[in-house]
């Protein structure tokens, strides 16, 4: 199932906002969007349609989003992204550990919302983006993200003789590359990479990360000491281009 086939339920009491969000979800190829204006409607639609993701306004005319969220979570594991218009909610969203998948503070830009929706769907359902492929192509090297194998296709200079090599990535190298590939083109901080690889309690692995990066470069770069794809951004992190 591709990412744009997932069904999204949008709950917000403001009609213009609903129309706008629907509009740009459509434009981002999410055609399966249903909307509700209050808790009652939301519950009804949720039962009938069983959406894959709920975008939920915190303040609704007949109750607050938090309690509706708890209701929905009782008999399903549906991911929820909160839409909040108050800074105060932010504390609650962070602090309560409601288990909400994400939240976004109004006002927001369309691309912000789309990014988060996609990120949650990818995480929860392992959904695939249309453009996103299982293979990361880095010049002559292709990395199969399903198996974590690096395929090299080299053409020997003189004859047209071709050589194919296969190298397997270690779990850590794979985690680093996966994170970088997800954010391809963008800088990923050392801290974010450490978190992706070691999860909690990730501090103190910076030097180990450098080692993994070097080994990863040896596997994916033609000239590991002059990398073309996995670039260092001094003092900040790395970027895969």
């Amino acid at each position, binding site marked *: 199932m591709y990412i744009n086939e997932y069904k999204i339920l949008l709950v917000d009491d*403001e009609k*213009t*906002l609903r129309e*706008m*969000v629907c*509009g*740009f979800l459509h*434009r981002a190829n999410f055609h399966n969007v249903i909307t509700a204006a209050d808790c009652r409607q939301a519950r009804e639609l949720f039962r009938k349609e069983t959406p894959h993701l709920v975008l939920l306004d915190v*303040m609704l005319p007949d109750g607050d989003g938090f309690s509706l969220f708890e209701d929905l979570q009782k008999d399903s594991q549906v991911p929820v992204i909160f839409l909040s*218009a*108050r*800074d*105060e909610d*932010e*504390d609650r969203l*962070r*602090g309560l550990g409601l288990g909400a998948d994400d939240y976004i*503070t*109004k*006002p*927001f*830009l*369309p*691309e912000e919302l789309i990014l988060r929706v996609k990120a949650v769907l990818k995480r929860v359902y392992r959904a695939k983006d249309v453009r996103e492929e299982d293979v990361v192509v880095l010049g002559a090297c292709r990395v199969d993200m399903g198996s974590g194998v690096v395929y090299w296709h080299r053409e020997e200079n003189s004859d047209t003789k071709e050589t194919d090599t296969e190298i397997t990535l270690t779990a850590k190298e794979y985690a680093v590359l996966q994170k970088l590939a997800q954010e391809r083109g*963008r*800088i*990923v*901080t*050392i*801290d*974010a990479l450490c978190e992706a690889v070691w999860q909690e*309690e990730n*501090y*103190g692995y*910076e030097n180990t990360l450098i080692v993994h990066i070097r080994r990863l470069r040896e596997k994916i770069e033609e000239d590991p000491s002059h990398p073309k794809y996995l670039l260092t*951004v001094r*003092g*900040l*992190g790395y970027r895969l281009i």
Partner: protein
Amino acid sequence: MGQKYNYKKAIRLFLYGVAMLTMIILLVGILNIVFFIVGILALKNMDIDYIHGGDVIEALTLTENGYVLAEEMEQEFVEQDQWAMLLDASGQVIWSIRKPEEVQEFYTRTDIARMTRYYLKGYPVQLRVWEDQIMVVGLQKDTVWKYNLEFSISWMDFVKRIWWYYFLINIAWITVLAFFFTRRYTRKKEQARIEWIAGVSHDIRTPLSVVMGYADTLEHEEGLPEETRQQADMIRHQSMVMKELIADLNLTSQLEYSMQALRREKVRPAEIIRNIVVEFLNDSRQKQLELDVQIASDAESVCVKADRQLFMRMFRNLINNSLKHGGQNDTVRIQISMWKEKGKCRIRYADNGMGYSEEILHGLRNRKRGASGHDIHGLQIVKKIVLAHGGKIWFGNCEEGGSYCLTEFRVTKKGF
């Protein structure tokens, strides 16, 4: 710790409250005394006191027929409805005027002793000794309440000694009362104000989302002329500015009244700095921005107790401020460095812009509010955030051009 910022204001209100209550209590005290004096005077006017025994004696003359009272005095006894009798050394009544019938003619020593302290058959009396005789002046029944009071000297001394403590206890009472009153009063007022601001910003945000959303859509609409798209971009950009302003307004009101204690947790500034910087660098809309981060190796592991969101806001505001004023040669160059100094964590932020104006520097260095303006607002918040975290902050201009902002924070013990 979040209250720190509010101390001055709270103390001022508190002192004001103490002064008010002290004044009220003083006023009540003065009124009491006035009433007391007026009361005594009123009682005096009611004339319940005895005709003076000495006067009676003086008005008596001994004749062959016994004692005779001067006429005016006799008149007085009638007017005041009092009576009197004279006892000789043996206790026998030898003269009397208007004496009630139930009062006997002869008194033993115990009778006399009793009536000096209490009543004589229910009549209040006063005794006056004259040579070996006793002049008894009496009022009518149920006109006077009397009670004998006696205190030991040591008790009276004790009272004198504790008088000051009593006074102090009273002051303490007033203080405590004032504290509760002012706290309730200010809480209510501050709460109302914060809620109002929060409400207004909430109401603005939803429509602003729509403005931003559609502006963004128009900007990416291929069919529109370039100029229109640029205008849409302008709308979007200005909406973002408004968004920041609303967030700042909300934050200012909360920091000012510090209703919401900071949600402090152990954070690594190094990580936050990288995070924010990358956020700006990854934003494709930001062009011509150079961000250089230098974190000393010993500062990498430094932890600070801070509110993560506020800490991020601090850097965002600084960077936004630099972006707003542009840099030399159209490239905004920002340098953030962090190091450890004397056990404290120092973060220096510098840009290559035109530097802070005298006015802004003045506004940032002084507490007075006059110099507030659109430009200074974001920086004021930076300052407030630093102060709310118990840190120090300095603003200034670099010699080679541009402005800097130096902050210092206490380091917490490493918990990793």
